[in-house]
């Protein structure tokens, strides 16, 4: 391909990207630096960028300050995985129906799904609390999984529907002519072709579930053993002092799984989000 940018344009681009990335990554960097500092450093003035006594001590101490930390990290991943699995189970058939079938109120329903997305969970916390109490789900994993699933289904449907619509209709017609049922076609033809799209939606849902669980956890769950990491981080705030360095260390360790997933699936994410943008 031809080089479309001149040298000054390229320099400008890189500067813009650098500024953007600084904004995004600086908090992570500061988190990392804070996690390395001894606690007394944090309250010292003037600010010291580097000193001899920086260490990874916080990364081992945090497990003792908050003994359930491992459990919290596991809970986070467990809840996010369950939310993802259940959401996908609902989203796949729904998105397929929206992509391929005709039924009354189709676009109205899609619009409603989009509208639901515009409410943040916070607005609905109190009604949700009542619903969960009536169902007897408070203080269980389900208290965090069920609302998570409910709030992520609309996004999932919108994302996957547009992906499924790009699979040529003739493939399904060919399968239908050859006697395949809708479900057989979905399983043998549509889903294998939709794998990149499924990965994109799955990752988006997982990240969404990981991010939103804090709100549901502090509202619908009082059981310590079931708390996810964001809620568990509160335990670093003690009566006397806040062990900021350990909290930062724990937070970094907690987002690590998501980062790893991102690294591995990044290729699919980019391909999926731009699918159909270019004629292949």
């Amino acid at each position, binding site marked *: 391909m031809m080089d479309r940018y001149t040298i000054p344009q390229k320099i400008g681009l890189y500067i813009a990207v650098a500024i953007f990335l600084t904004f995004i990554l600086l908090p992570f960097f500061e988190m990392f630096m804070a996690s390395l500092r001894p606690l007394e450093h944090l309250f010292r003035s003037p600010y010291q960028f580097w000193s001899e006594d920086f260490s990874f001590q916080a990364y081992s101490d945090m497990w003792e300050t908050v003994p359930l930390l491992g459990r919290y990290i596991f809970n986070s991943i467990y809840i996010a995985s369950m939310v993802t699995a259940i959401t996908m189970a609902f989203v796949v058939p729904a998105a397929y129906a929206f992509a391929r079938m005709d039924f009354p109120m189709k676009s109205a329903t899609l619009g409603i799904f989009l509208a639901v997305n515009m409410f943040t969970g916070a607005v609905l916390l109190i009604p949700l609390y009542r619903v969960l109490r009536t169902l007897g789900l408070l203080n269980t994993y389900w208290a965090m999984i069920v609302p998570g699933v409910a709030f992520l289904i609309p996004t999932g449907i919108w994302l996957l529907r547009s992906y499924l619509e790009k699979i040529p209709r*003739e493939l399904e017609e*060919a399968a239908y002519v*050859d*006697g395949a049922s809708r479900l057989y076609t979905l399983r*043998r033809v549509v889903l294998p072709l939709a794998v990149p799209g499924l990965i994109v939606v799955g990752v988006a849902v997982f990240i969404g579930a990981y991010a939103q669980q804090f709100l549901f956890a502090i509202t619908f769950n009082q059981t310590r053993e079931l708390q996810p990491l964001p809620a568990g981080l509160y335990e670093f705030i003690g009566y006397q002092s806040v062990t900021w360095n350990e909290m930062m260390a724990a937070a970094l360790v907690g987002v690590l799984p998501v980062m790893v997933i991102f690294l591995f699936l990044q290729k699919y994410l980019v391909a999926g989000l731009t699918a159909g943008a270019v004629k292949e």
Partner: protein
Amino acid sequence: MATLDLENISKSFGPAKVLHDIDLAIRDKEFVVFVGPSGCGKSTLLRIIAGLEETSAGRIVIEGRDVSREDPVDRGISMVFQSYALYPHLTVFENIAFPLRVQKMTQDEVSQRVARAAEILQLTDKLPLKPGQLSGGQRQRVAIGRSIVREPKVFLFDEPLSNLDAALRGDMRVELSQLHRALNATMVYVTHDQVEAMTMADRIVVLNGGRVEQFGSPMELYHHPATKFVAGFIGQPNMNFVPGTVADASGGGVAIDTVDGARLVLPVDTAGVSTGDAVEIGIRPEDVRLGDGLDLNIRVLERLGGVSIAHGALSDGTRFCASLDGNARIEEGVPVGLTVDPACAHVFKADGTVLRRQAAPALVA
């Protein structure tokens, strides 16, 4: 005996009626081509036969059994799509085997049938490949392979060659004709290309605006087009239409005054015309030769070697095309005289219907 009868098929999409009372009887083992311009309803009609679209009215009868409300697979049809519709994630073997897998056939039977189809289509060494690794012609053959393994009664083809380049299309035409003979099956083939229709069909259905203009053998359509539309559609280059006025319709033919005051007496039925009617004379480019008669002002001359195609206009401005000898002594910009053999000309009334020719050229020995 795989006969296919379409009885009064109509189809509407909302208020738009795209097919009007289509009535066709397709014989066993016949190769029938639906041809017409885009939007004439030919693909819709094929999809109705396949069961991908429902009829608004009418019946589809295969082997004497009404299948109008049945699923495609129960109708005993199979279809080859324009885009091939191969499954990109499956190997050629699994693509061809797909209909058999649906039927839950045993692995032995599947292998046997796929191998047989692959052999007919010369795909045996391609079986482990994915469709993406094949050329256009090979993909087309895979699509055909998938349609033949199930051994259907009727094969449907929806513009299967339109994605291929010209040379390959010529080869595939021959292959499809051979396949038809080898399988001895009823085939319905949709195309907008009249050359494909003429070369492959036992009989051609010319569709226009959702109606059957004419149903007949290729040479019947060529020599006895029922309407001006069919006459203009069949034959390459297209037929010329020259305006004229009926001077006398009382004799054994019709005398017509046309351009340059020329009077042609054409041996056609005189029923339905009277003196003074405006008509059009249909003259095929290949039915003229150099001589006296019409003056053609040549604007563009295409020398193809064997023939020379002269495009131009008559003295009254009517566009006219003549297919002349490859070595004819003619030039762009220089007028030439053309003689028309009256026996070869067609006459169309103002409503587009034809006056039946009394004689058509017999096949030359």
